[in-house]
């Protein structure tokens, strides 16, 4: 049996979770909502995170556009996604929601722009 205290990071409330894993059985307490339970179970099976960064833009009114993964990805894939983003260089104009890197590092998740960059 493994017992673990963790903070739910799904929303800013930051509930303190107590997780007990007994064989395949995972019991979560301390969560205010269902998402907390899903998060705790995920932490034991396949921890998920959103990756956010900024990428250089060609010909933009500002040098960088902020980006994020459209959905969460496996925590283990974060370094690969960050590495892939190093060479991503969209051309202005960039709109919020534009895909700047499809299927980032084979995760099946797109990286999208989160701000607008106009042409210079």
């Amino acid at each position, binding site marked *: 049996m493994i017992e673990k205290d963790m*903070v739910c990071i799904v*929303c800013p409330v930051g509930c303190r979770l107590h997780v007990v894993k007994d064989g395949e059985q995972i019991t979560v307490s301390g969560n205010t909502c269902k998402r907390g339970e899903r998060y705790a179970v995920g932490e034991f099976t396949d921890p998920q995170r959103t990756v956010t960064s*900024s990428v250089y833009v060609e010909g933009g009114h500002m040098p960088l556009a902020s*980006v994020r993964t459209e959905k969460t990805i496996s*925590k283990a894939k974060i370094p690969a996604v960050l590495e892939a983003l190093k060479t991503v260089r969209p051309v202005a104009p960039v709109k919020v929601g534009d895909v700047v890197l499809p299927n980032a590092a084979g995760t099946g998740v797109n990286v999208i722009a989160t701000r607008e960059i106009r042409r210079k």
Partner: protein
Amino acid sequence: MKQVDIAIIGGGPAGLAAALEAKKTGAQSILIIERDRELGGILQQCIHNGFGLQWFGEELSGPEYAHRFIEQLADTGIEVMTDTMALQLNPDKTIIAAGYHTGWEEIHAKAVILAMGCRERTRGAINIPGARPAGVYTAGCAQRLVNMEGYMPGREIVILGSGDIGLIMARRMTWEGAKVKLVSEIMPYSSGLARNIAQCLDDNDIPLKFSHTVTQIHGRERVEGVTVAEVDAKLNPIPGTEEYIPCDTLLLSVGLIPENELTTMAGIQMDPVTSGAAVDQNRQTSVEGIFACGNVLHVHDLVDNVSAEAVIAGHAAAEYVRKTEHPAPRKVALKPENGVRYTVPQALNLAGELPEELDLYFRVRNAYKPAVLEITADGKVIRTVKKPIMTPGEMEKVKVKTADIAQAGEIALRIVEA
């Protein structure tokens, strides 16, 4: 000279939400004065996610959160002056502003909403001994450099203070290839959100030391290292606990100061604890027709709360402009007592029409686990709220029934110790 119904100083999340709400409430001419080159304020550099869960019901990054509001501005007729700095605010609600494109301007407003936000405390404000080498940045400055301008402040980082920006930057710098060697927090607790300690520090194996501070910065031209020492209960460094940590960069996340030069210039009554104006439930200050919301009023942990507060101020400002008569205020003080550090509002104005319930925001002085809050009206307990935990880092909110306090002469909030 320019004449408007409502002038809003600051085009960050508070100013944007206040402007849109004032418009919705029926205000005709609304002007936002913004000193940066674009709207959105600090959100534009907060590229991490975690914004908007309460406001939009989905998780957004800072720039997206700002974008949603900026988009709504189109076709509203709300006027925006960017690259413009409000230099002076008078109690008669005139504003002197200087714009990069427009020059000197005198603005006459019927109502003013203060939404200037805050700025970071710097090295000077906390007096760390040492020379003045390059490589000492506030966390927010580093955030702007990395996320918006494309510069890396350094490679080997120590962060002093565990405020949210510091925690976020610990992860950000790590993701950009830097080594964050330590986050040192002088208090025995963090002022940042628990989730940020988990997802920024724990996820990246970054050590966090409570009750530790930087006692010296080494290096002449460039930071070469810092000395970190444990502090006692009075926050004084304990001799013999010093440790030298080589690094090229020190980031400071040592608190935010509401930017209230204009507020004090207008003679508005301040709350020494929040360093913001003292306001009533409509976020009206002691000067009639001047309202305040967002981080300039008190430092928020969540932008969603800033938006909610700005809506209150925006609505009230529009109502103020619409009504020709304003009943004399009947103010009842809200007193923060045992364990409660401050409340916003600082007083309730019980004159005129009131909603059925009023929201009170407050922060506690220490961590309480579990926490029991009592609200009293003239010494009589009218509400007790229990929570598993309350910490100074997280703002709390309680509702009171207006009926319970309508006759009160004094209302107090206090933590009852177990």
